[in-house]
């Protein structure tokens, strides 16, 4: 199929983009296009106006600043994935990006586009929730910062108000071990279920644990109860098994032709066991 007609604006600055979005309800931002163009082609999206931000250079950056990684919304997946700074400072993010579609998709897709698209089965939203990232957004009323945990409201629904753009993603760096475990129908497809974990140890004792799950609810799920159960003790088989049960209990998976809800919940537990064991090894 072919897209329905729309007006097109190639924005050359953030202000110009914000102004255009504010002036046309239902206008859509175009970043990498890796989700939006297919939706246009299938006529699942029919915006009156598309605001192209590919020339807004101020949205494209990647740097370490005050112990955090600062990522411009327009920074392409592949740039982040292959960055030496990201590999050393936020290795969970680099590993997770390797699961986002195929290289050709990652060459064009942007970090901001993936987050704004807010697919519950996508990797980046869950990683950002696991890492306690913060998102800067800007609109006609100015700038505000939203915690990743408060950003995702439902499938393809975010805290972005009409006319607002995601501009910057700020991620704390992390030490210790990490792991991504994903189950998908095809290599590098969206997750049926994916678990993202980091662990730090002090001797044998688990000091911190962070666990988030994709594909197991309307938004990414942060498994706080499981994290609390792990912290302060050794990562014994029993402790990990309990955490896995708590993760499964925190999920609210959809069921479909490809994977019934029960199966996804059970897989969330299985993948959690694997993720924590692997994160512990690297810690």
């Amino acid at each position, binding site marked *: 199929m072919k897209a329905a007609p729309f007006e097109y604006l190639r924005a050359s600055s953030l202000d110009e983009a914000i102004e255009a979005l504010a002036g046309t309800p239902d206008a859509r931002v175009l970043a990498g296009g890796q989700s939006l163009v297919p939706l246009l082609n299938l006529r699942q999206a029919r915006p009156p106006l598309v605001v192209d931000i590919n020339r807004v250079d101020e949205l494209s950056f990647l740097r370490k600043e005050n112990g955090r990684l600062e990522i411009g919304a327009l920074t392409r997946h592949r740039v982040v994935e292959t960055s030496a700074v990201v590999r050393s400072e936020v290795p969970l993010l680099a590993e997770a990006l390797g699961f986002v579609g195929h*290289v050709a998709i990652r060459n064009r897709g942007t970090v901001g586009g993936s987050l704004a698209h807010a697919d519950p089965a996508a990797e980046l939203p869950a990683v950002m929730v696991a890492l306690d990232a913060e998102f800067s957004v800007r609109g006609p009323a100015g700038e505000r910062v939203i915690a990743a945990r408060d950003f995702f409201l439902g499938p393809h629904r975010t805290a972005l108000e009409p006319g607002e753009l995601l501009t910057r993603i700020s991620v704390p760096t992390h030490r210790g071990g990490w792991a991504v475990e994903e189950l998908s129908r095809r290599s590098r497809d969206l997750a049926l279920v994916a678990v993202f974990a980091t662990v730090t140890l002090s001797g044998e004792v688990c000091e911190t644990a962070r666990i988030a799950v994709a594909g197991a609810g309307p938004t990414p799920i942060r498994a706080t109860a499981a994290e609390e159960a792990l912290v302060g003790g050794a990562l014994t088989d029993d402790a990990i098994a309990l955490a896995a049960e708590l993760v499964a209990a925190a999920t609210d998976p959809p069921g479909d032709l490809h994977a019934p809800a029960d199966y996804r919940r059970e897989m969330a537990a299985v993948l959690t066991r694997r993720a924590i064991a692997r994160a512990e090894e690297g810690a």
Partner: protein
Amino acid sequence: MITVTVTVNGRTYRADCEPRRTLADFLRHDLGFVGVHVGCEHGVCGSCTITLDGASARSCCLLAVQVDGAEIVTVEGLAENGELHPLQESFRKHHGLQCGFCTPGMLATAMELLEENPDPTDAEIRQGISGNLCRCTGYQFIVDAIRDAAPGR
């Protein structure tokens, strides 16, 4: 209508198109590069994969207006002076081309794979082309062709 200027296989082209025109349709229908094959139009099959500013991209998941000023290589740009590119030659030798529908996208994907990893294992080749569907399912020959063309071997 918007005017789009792109360099394709070393030559600069300028043409008008609607904003909704995908890069795939622009290359194929407006500029005549019919080696750009369109299968699914939503990024899944990989047959429309081209090289855009030095990196592989799905031309069906981009608007032509979005890449104004870009440098593109299509399958038509691989052969030089009537000589097939070594990767094309290897596809010929190993029978990696059956009906040819997936071939342009496979070649663009394999070119980038070999550039980044001059001596890939079979598993890495399979992973590398996992985003490209071959409806003739000739994957074994395609893997053989890519392995044999790897510069690091």
